[in-house]
């Protein structure tokens, strides 16, 4: 019996060590992988000047987003609405979400400074959480049409409901220096 438990322990140890090592290995990389957060976004031209026409992000399914503090990056959805760009963070009321989406809590509690890399180009931004207002309807419509299979009234209403009850947080990726 003892040897069986010992073998079981080793079999559990291997994936646990592998997971921890993969996460550690990626933590200093230039950008995230699909599963693990990355480090500081380094490669890519830094955008300067006025904001671009963000409608080009309609053809971009995911972007890389890095907080300035802490310097960690992840892959995330992006929605353009009304000439501005927004990013979502879901599962925010679940226990798993509180662990998984720690970046959203950090962005909301901290200064919100971030760098986004979109199609290989970097943009310095400031994350501002949007909790209410008509802008959320436009964001919900874009989210439903881009990621939810279609901007049906039911899909939009479900997204608005998710925003309202705090299960999904929406951040505007505003220009640096925007008042929060």
């Amino acid at each position, binding site marked *: 019996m*003892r*040897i069986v438990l*010992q073998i079981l*322990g*080793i079999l559990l*140890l*291997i994936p646990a*060590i*592998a997971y921890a*090592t*993969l996460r550690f*290995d990626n933590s200093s990389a230039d950008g995230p*992988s*699909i*599963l*693990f957060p990355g480090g500081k976004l380094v490669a890519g031209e830094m955008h300067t000047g006025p904001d671009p026409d963000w409608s080009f992000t309609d053809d971009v399914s995911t972007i890389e987003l890095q907080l300035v503090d802490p310097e960690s990056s992840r892959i995330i959805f992006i929605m353009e609405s009304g000439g501005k760009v927004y990013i979502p963070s879901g599962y925010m009321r679940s226990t798993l979400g509180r662990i998984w989406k720690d970046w959203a809590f950090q962005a909301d509690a901290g200064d919100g400074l971030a760098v986004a890399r979109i199609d290989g180009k970097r943009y310095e931004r400031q994350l501002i959480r949007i909790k209410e207002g008509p802008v959320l309807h436009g964001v919900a419509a874009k989210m439903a049409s881009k990621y939810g299979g279609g901007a049906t009234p039911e899909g939009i209403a479900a997204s608005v409901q998710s925003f309202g009850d705090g299960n999904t947080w929406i951040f505007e990726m505003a220009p640096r220096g925007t008042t929060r």
Partner: protein
Amino acid sequence: MKTKTYLVVCVAVALAVSISILYIPGVSQYLEQTLLIFLSTNAR
């Protein structure tokens, strides 16, 4: 196995896994792809 031997085996296995992932090219990509396939197949 005696406890001391078991702990030595655990440390050796942990080191072998970590070093393989960190220093053998392709191992980390392979493991991550495998994990991703597993999650996309089972996370419903």
